[in-house]
């Protein structure tokens, strides 16, 4: 069991809105670790689309992804990649 976190800057121009949020949740759900994502004071469950949407993380804002469990490290890696490589709607 381990807990890992990483802070990432949102690159998607439209921010973490419905579609990229869905992508994030789908990826998070592949891991058994407990996953949270927080922006400022707000912390939400990373496997809940409603929660992730609530963050309303705009382009350029920083969020922290935290995973707690056996596959924490690979979860954080995969999720950081979703936030970083998704450049969506050109």
């Amino acid at each position, binding site marked *: 069991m381990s807990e890992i976190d990483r802070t990432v800057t949102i690159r998607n121009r439209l921010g973490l809105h419905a579609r990229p949020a869905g992508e994030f949740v789908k990826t998070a759900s592949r891991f058994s670790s407990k996953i949270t994502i927080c922006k400022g004071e707000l912390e939400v469950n990373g496997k809940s689309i409603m929660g992730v949407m609530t963050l309303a993380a705009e382009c350029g804002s920083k969020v922290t992804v935290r995973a707690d469990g056996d596959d924490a490290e690979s979860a954080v890696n995969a999720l950081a990649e979703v936030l970083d490589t998704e450049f*969506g709607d050109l």
Partner: protein
Amino acid sequence: MSDPRLLKGIGVSPGIAIGPLYVMSAEMPEITHRVIANDEVEAELFRLRKAISDVRREIELLKEHTLIHAGKEEAKIFGAQILMLEDPYFLGEVESLIRENQLTAERAFEFKALEVRDQWAQSPSSTLRQKIADLTGIQIRVLQALVGGSLEDVLHEAGDRPAIVLMRELTPGLTIQFEQANVSGLGSEYGTRAAHAAIIARSLEMPCVMGISGGIDHLRRGTMAILDGTLGTILVEPTEEEMAEAQVRDGRRLALEGELKDAVGQPSITADAVTIKLRGNVDLPEEIELVAENRAEGVGLLRTEFMLIGRNEMPGEDEQTEFFTRIAKWFPTSPVIIRSYDVGGDKFPAAFRSQREANPFLGWRAIRVCLDEPEMFRTQIRAVLRARALADVRFMLPLVSQVEEIERTRDLVTEESEKLEREGVEYGADLPLGVMVETPAAAMMVDQFAEKSAFISVGTNDLTQYTLAIDRGNARMANRFTALHPAVVRLLKRIVDTSNQERLEVSVCGEMASEPLSLLLLIGLGYKVFSTSPVALPLVRWLVRQFDVFTAKSAADVALEAPTARDVYEVLEWRLRDMIDPELLDLGPLPG
């Protein structure tokens, strides 16, 4: 004094509807508070799950219907709703309220939905507040599935005359259902042009007004009204004359639609027989068919950025060659003008992500990126050269501000041509290299560009933004952002005059060419080649056929002497009135 019968809002989907009002004030079913017994918990959980799966099926159907009648992008809205509906953590919390607090399924669901809604409503993010309509859509459906009472029942009651439905908030799903029912117009207190429901209403050609101010609750069911989705107004208790007048106006609008259809088959010549060349802009490959259907003479702007969407590696040479050739096949006798990657600013592929810049629109973008990333640029150039072996493709550079940028690109083209020659790969010689004029710097340098390039294309949005130092995406500045500013008008004049002196083909490929007033101005200034979005092509062709160059020129002459954008607008509007009925058209807001 304003007319107290007139409600004002934002027109989000054009057209006129006349009919009795149907105010849906209680769209959300009333839920009474009731506590269940311990042994009822399992049954209640079962009811919840069944309701969720029923609603899922409903939304799937709406999604399919939307896909067929509106489009792929619109259908995605429902994909997001399904994800929200099935959010396991949200449902988990609803279930624990049922288990631990012994609430009914509907009460528990409503409670959690209100919690999320409150949180979203307080968010500073307007994007998130827009999504509340999606949440409402789901909530209504789930509650209705649980307590009964459906929209169909309500609509049935509305009577047999096509009704105008007003509600506090319009959801995408309801919009689709209204279209299938006996409804001729829609209005809501919340929402803007960007709302999902508005997008769908436009696709379905359902007149719609949003952001109605002054409230709708005082309106009586069955009151006659005229809803005007073009002007964004609702007139209640109209007189016979007003209804007749609206009908005439709507008739003319429909007649215009008919004329636009007919115009597609006609040559694009002005009333005084000057030939105007019309081409299409292509953002995505699927748009090409519409460009051809609307009988454009080739593609004036083929954007290449879509090839970078959603991938981390750059597209290869073969892939690009194949794509350019496939597009060009649609136009055996006309050119296809390929624009090199216009990346940067606010759009960047993963492979070339740069440092965050303080002013991205004044930074590393467009031709500047291409020249600094020669591998990427050479691959694109090779693909264009290879496509030119088979078709008349040409190459255009965005955001040029220095002669050296053209020279360096020309050198790359020469080097890659020689390499292809040595490799024995077929390619087309003499690739015409064009320059996009999008900055005041470029506008002043057209005579120098002329020696190095084959054609000039004016990007009016960027030219306006850089001339006026106004961010085109800044809503606060929206009323000052206008291509009719005299400074822009004068630059446009300079560009066309210099190009003509130098015998360079000059075209306009910005949005400006598809707006009636500015098209009149451009023709008056001497432009004869335009490239617009495929949907705008029939309107532009029709407008060209109504205009005469003589009148356009006299309007442009006055515009060149005008002190303000408002004066430019007024002279153009006045001359336009001579040629067409401006009530038929959306002329855009008066700048100022």
